[in-house]
Structure formats: structure tokens, C-alpha cells
């Protein structure tokens, strides 16, 4: 009880120390995210403008590579980090993120439009998508991973050791085939033209004609359709179901702007944020905006089944799955 007396004074000092009041500038909210989110073509600029209209603050996005690099950056900085929010991890990374102890519960109750139930108290989804192989519409489309493996279709994939989609495919095969995953990889080995360090290299090589298909998302054809008016790209629907990528944001426990951070997380699941997502991040919004999805999204394939390992499962099977993958492809 005694401490409460001093609270206003302490709070005053804290405000002066953070510069929020002292020089009359708006308080700054720092959001660490992956590069393509904050680029001129990503959702960043529109979301920044929309949030700053409501918050009387300065929202700053800090780009840090991809999702894995983002987490590594936070770990490097540790509790002294300037980040208030980390936006762009996926469920394959959240177990490791939780383990750092750097995150606080998000505290948002929202009605999410995900194909699965969401109960994570620390991380809140802002968008999601299905991994899928993307190909030209005129190529023969296999109906499953095993049919792909049996065919002589060539594919280019990303390395699970350096890329989040690559890790997603690893989890896809594991979630669909469990103990038989090693065999599936062995069968796929002769279809794989090459393994690239990241998504950009793989997608670029596919567009250059180096392979029949590339590991990407079911929403990738929407980019070509909407931004380039090119209907020639399709995603293959597979009978095993498709592994999901759920992209989340979390509040950093050591934030100096806890209220602004809460305000941002609440804003994240509103229309102003969500309506920007489909045609900038090319993913499904976590909450479908009132006006619905943009025209063109209705042409995308919807998988029969959604596969997703829980963060804890994903973390626990990862190393063994990596070994299976490496052994099968090193033969």
C-alpha cells in the first residue's frame, strides 16, 4: 500500500524519461516485423497511416529479415530491446518465442475467422494462409504429395534451415505422414530441382522456368490475378490437406508503451488493419472485413483439410524431421 503514494511521481518520471511528455513529441510505438511487411509494397505504410489517425502516436515499423531473423533479432537484443510489439512470427516459431520469456499475454478477445480454433494467450494472429505448390495452369496437376512424388514433375523448394516456408513444408509432410515422412521425402527427392535459401530465390527461379512448380501459398495466384491481371498461375489442391501458416503478433513484456501496445493489438483485428492484408501481404485476413475478400480471392483453391501442428508439437518434432529431410535428400 505504501508504494501507491509514490506512483504518480514515479509515473511522471517514467514519462519524462521516455521523452513522451518532455519534448512534446507523440509517444513512439516500435513494431518489429519482417522485411516484406514494412516495404512500400507491403501492408506497413497503409496500416501505419490508419493507426496513427487514431492513436496520437508515432508508429514505427522496424524490418528484420524474415520471421526467423525477427525472432533471432529479439533474442540478440534481449530484455533491453526497444521493441514494443513483434509482428510476423508463425506457429513454428512461437514455442521458441514463448521460451524466451520476452512476451506478455495479448489480452485481446476477438472473433477470428481461422479454419481452426485459436486459444494462444500470448500470440494473436493477424493473417494466415495455406502452403501449396504453385504452377502454371497448363501443367499437369498432381492431386496429392504422393502423386507429386511419383510423377516426374519438377519442383523447387526452400531450405527448412533458413526459410519459414521451407520449414512449413517440412511440417506439412510430417503432419500428413508422421512416421512415413522419411519415405515421402525419399520419393520426392528426384522431383526437387534445387533447394533455395529463401522464398524469393525459389519463386524467382520458378517464374524463370527452372521448375514446373514452387512451394508457396494458395494465395500466390491472387497476386498474379489481381496485381498483374494474369490468370496463368494456379495452386495445386492436395488430398492430404494443406499445412497452414498462421502469422501472429505478440506484446513484448518489457515495453515502455504497454497501453499503446494493447491499443495496437486491438486495432490489429479491426477492419482498418485487416482490409489491407489480402492485396498487400497476399494472405487471408485473420478477421474477414465487413466488405468481404477482394474480387479474385474466390478463384483460389480451398483445401479439404487444414493441417497445423501446435507450437509445442512443431518445436518437438523439428530436429528429427530435419534429420529425416537431410538424410532423404542427401542420398
Amino acid at each position, binding site marked *: 500500500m505504501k508504494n501507491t503514494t509514490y506512483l504518480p511521481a514515479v509515473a511522471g518520471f517514467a514519462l519524462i524519461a521516455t521523452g513522451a511528455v518532455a519534448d512534446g513529441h507523440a509517444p513512439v510505438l516500435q513494431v518489429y516485423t519482417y*522485411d*516484406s511487411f*514494412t*516495404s*512500400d*509494397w*507491403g501492408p506497413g505504410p497503409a496500416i501505419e497511416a490508419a493507426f496513427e489517425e487514431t492513436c496520437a502516436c508515432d508508429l*514505427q*515499423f*522496424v*524490418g*528484420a*529479415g524474415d520471421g*526467423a*531473423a525477427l*525472432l*533471432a*533479432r529479439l*533474442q*540478440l*537484443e534481449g530484455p*533491453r530491446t*526497444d521493441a514494443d510489439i513483434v509482428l510476423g512470427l508463425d506457429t513454428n516459431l512461437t514455442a*521458441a518465442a514463448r521460451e524466451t520469456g520476452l512476451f506478455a499475454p495479448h489480452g485481446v478477445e476477438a472473433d477470428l475467422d481461422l479454419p481452426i480454433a485459436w486459444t494462444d494467450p500470448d500470440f494473436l494472429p493477424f493473417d494466415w494462409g495455406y502452403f501449396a505448390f504453385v504452377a502454371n495452369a497448363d501443367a499437369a496437376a498432381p492431386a496429392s504429395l504422393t502423386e507429386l512424388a511419383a510423377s516426374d514433375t*519438377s519442383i523447387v523448394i526452400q*531450405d527448412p*534451415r*533458413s526459410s519459414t516456408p521451407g*520449414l512449413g513444408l517440412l511440417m506439412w509432410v510430417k503432419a500428413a505422414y508422421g512416421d512415413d515422412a522419411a519415405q515421402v521425402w525419399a520419393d520426392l*527427392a528426384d522431383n*526437387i*530441382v*534445387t*533447394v*533455395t*535459401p*529463401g*522464398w*524469393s*530465390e525459389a*519463386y*524467382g*527461379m520458378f*517464374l*524463370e*522456368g*527452372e*521448375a514446373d512448380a514452387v512451394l508457396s501459398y494458395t494465395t*500466390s495466384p491472387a*497476386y*498474379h490475378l489481381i*496485381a498483374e491481371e494474369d490468370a496463368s498461375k494456379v495452386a495445386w489442391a492436395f488430398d492430404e490437406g494443406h499445412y497452414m501458416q498462421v502469422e501472429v503478433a505478440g506484446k513484448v513484456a518489457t515495453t515502455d508503451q504497454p497501453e499503446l501496445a494493447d491499443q495496437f493489438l486491438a486495432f490489429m483485428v479491426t477492419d482498418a488493419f485487416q482490409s489491407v492484408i489480402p492485396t498487400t501481404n*497476399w494472405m487471408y485476413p485473420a478477421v474477414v472485413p465487413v466488405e468481404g475478400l477482394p474480387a479474385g480471392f474466390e478463384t483460389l483453391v480451398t483445401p479439404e483439410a487444414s493441417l497445423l501442428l501446435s507450437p509445442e508439437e512443431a518445436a518437438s518434432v523439428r530436429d528429427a524431421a530435419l*534429420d529425416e*529431410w*537431410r538424410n532423404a*535428400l*542427401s542420398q
Partner: protein
Amino acid sequence: MAQRAVPITSRVPAIAAAGLVLLLTLGTLGAVLWRAEWQGGLSPADWAAIRFTVWQALLSAAISVVLAIPIARALARRQFRGRQFLITLLGAPFLLPVIVAVLGLLAVFGRGGILNSGLEAIGLPTVSIFGLQGVVLAHVFFNLPLAIRFILQGWLAIPSERFRLAATLNAPIGRLLEWPMLRTVVPSTFLVIFLICLTSFAVALTMGGGPRATTVELAIYQALRFDFDLGRAALLAVIQFGLCVGAALLAWRLTGENLSGAGLDRVVQRWDTPKPWIDFLWIAAAALFLLIPLAMIILRGLPGMFDMPESILAAAMRSVLVAVGSSLLCTAMAFALALKGGIAVSVVGVLPLAASGLVVGTGAFLIVFPFARPSDVALLVTMLVNATLALPFALRAIAPAIAAIQQDFGRLGTSLGMGGWSWVRLVVFPRARRPLGFAAGLAAALSMGDLGVITLFAGQSEETLPLAMYRLMGAYRMEAAASAALLLLVLSFALFWLCDKWGRSDADI
């Protein structure tokens, strides 16, 4: 070697340069180690990565050097219109960012590339580029230009009086002049390329076709980014340094002594030029191999060239500024170190090649973070790191020239009582101008294409051109990215050309 008589110059710049190199190579490694929680050793997969790394680096370096010798000889003894421009142009692949070069190579050697379309047209089976052959092909594509330049410099450094004398005496030029020159030039060239390939990551993985082609640098990437296992990353980086030291010791043992004797700087005239068509065949083959992928990059980039987003131009400006700063710093450091000379300088000169770019970036981040916001110092740190990483190339270009000047003119300088600044200004600097220009150009162009530390430090307003290009690719904008790549190629090449031209402005070769 007998004790050299060399005018005394200040040691302070050399010590400062060496200090910066040590801080950014061993210091950053130390910073990572200091933060690491130690957990145990290497896995069998790590050992496989080490074996593959060394093997592909040996092959790549050997093939680059072996091919470069006849090409450099052909360029050294033939005069033709456009020769100087061709020599500069052949240097371009070395300056390309990895992904740009890979896409250029695929346009020629890939599934739908020129080579396979040609094979298909005449009914032959197509070939796959992916695998060890692809890794080596890409590394030779990158490094052959460097090998040609270094070995060509060796040829051009043989004074024309010796060729004249040999011709008069009808003596065997190959054994008397060229072989001793190659003994001094080839081991260090091999070493530099071996070390470049040793720390390769994206090329090896992309062209290697799968996890068979895992290199140590990729294992470091995985440890830093996916496992956040700083201990393992540091251990792998230490192994990389160990491989580097071993290779360097071996190369130095094999390096021959330079022949003494100064020339009078006349244009080399050669009398021993049998069968000119063989030389031109070599030159044509090198030009085709190196320039066709380059032409493909230009063709891909042209369509979008005139509607590039404005942010790309801002990023390009930033890259040029960083490149100029880093080039000046790098050349000054290399000059200071080369004046000092000695084995310690040689060690400092190869350290940056053995450093893992990722560990340097992470270590620099750990060092900077307690004191400043990383994005505030992003461009400064990038400039320092780029200058340091380009130092081995600059030193390799400058040091032999300065050693030769000191050997040839040192006694004269001492007897005239020249020392310090006047010795440097009147004798060394003008005579070393050509390698200085080359080194400055190389450092500037390497800095332009670099995508190392900047990824860790940069915010939105510190974006450099290569980073902007990657971000375009990440946003599906492949055509805009191809144009950014072309802009990058043009700017790198222009910077290199300007510096190289400055170096040659008073030379007549």
C-alpha cells in the same frame, strides 16, 4: 631476403587499420562467443558440411586459376582494339550480388536456358546444372574474373626490358620470366579464391541442388537464425578461421620469391608470339562464358528500367555514398598496411576473407546495441564492415606493387634522404597509382553489391540498393527487382570503371 633499405614512414595508420580489421573479425567473433551458452560439439551433419565446403572450394579455386593462366597470358601479349574495355568488362561478374548472378547463369545454363534450348534443338539430351557441377560453375563464374586480373597484373609487372633481353638472347621466356612470376602470383590468387568459396552460402545451396551442398556458412546461418545457438555458430566460425589459417600457411610456403630488378616502364613488346589464334580462342571463350549471363541480366532488367519506384533511387544514392566511403577507407587502409609490409600484415590481410559475414554482422550488432540504436549507425557500420571485407582484395592488388617499389627504389630513396610523407607522395603514390585505382574500384563495387550486415541493422530509411532489390523480390515484384539488379550492375560497374580509369590515366598499357 636481405634487410631492406626503405625510407621510414609512420606506423600509426597501419596499426589503426590492423586494429579495425581485428575488431571486426576476431572482435565480433569474441562478442558472439561471449554471449553464447556453451552446449556441446559438432554433429555428423556439421562434419559433412565441412567436408563439402573444403572440397567445392578446392575445386572452384583450382579450376578458376588454371583457366585464368592462359586467358591472362593471351590478354597480356595481344594488343587489339577494345582490349582495355574488355579487361574491365570481364571483371563484372565478380561484382554481382549472388542472386543476380545465379539468375543470369540460369538463363544460360538452366532448364530453359540458352544451352539446353540449343541442345534440344539439335536433338541432344539436356544437362542439369544443379549439383556439384553447378556450385563449381557458379564459383568459377564469380572468381575467374578476379583470377584473370591478378595473374594479368603479374604479367604486366614483368618489365619490358626483360622481354627485350630474352628476345635478344633467344632465351626461353616461359621458364625464365613467366614461371617465376606465376610462382609468386598463383598461390596467393588460389588462396583468395579458395577462401571466398569457403564462406559461400547462397550460391552453394541454390546451385548445389539440396542439403548435400550444405556449407559451413549455411550451418552458421541455421545456428544463428533458426536455433539461436550462438555457441555453435561461434564454434563453426572458429573452424572456418582454422581452415583459413591452414590454407594461408600452405599458400605462403608455395609462394616464390619475386625477381629483383626495376624496369623503365616501357610498353611491353613481345617477340615470342606464335599461333595468335590460340590466344584469341582463349579470349573469346572467356568473353562468351562471362559476358553472356551478364547480357541476360541486362535483357531481363531493361523492360522495367523506366518505371522503377522512387525509393529504389534513394536506396541507390545511399548505396553509392556507402560505396564511395568504404572504398576510400579500404584503399587508405590497404595502402597503409602495404607500406608497413611484413608477415603480420599478410595475416591481417586474409582474416576478413575467413570471417563469416553472418558472425561479423551479429557480433557487430552485439557490440553496437548497448550504445546506439542499430538503425542509427546502420550505414556507418556497413561502410566499416564493407571496407574491411574488401581489404584482402585491395591489399592483394596494392601490396606486390608497393613491395616492388620499395625493393627497386628504396635504396635510392634512402640515399636521397627521403622519408615519410615526401617518399610516399613523390615515389610510392604515383608509381602505385594503377593498383590503387583498381583496388578502390574493387572495394567500391564490392560494397555496392554487399548484402551482409545491412540486413541486420537497417530500418526503412537506411535501405541500400541490394536490400531494396531483395525486398522487391520478397513482394512478388520480380520485374522491378530485375531492373533494380540492372541498376546495381550499372552503378557497380561505373564506380569500378571510374576508379580503374583514374589509376590508368597516366599509364600507357
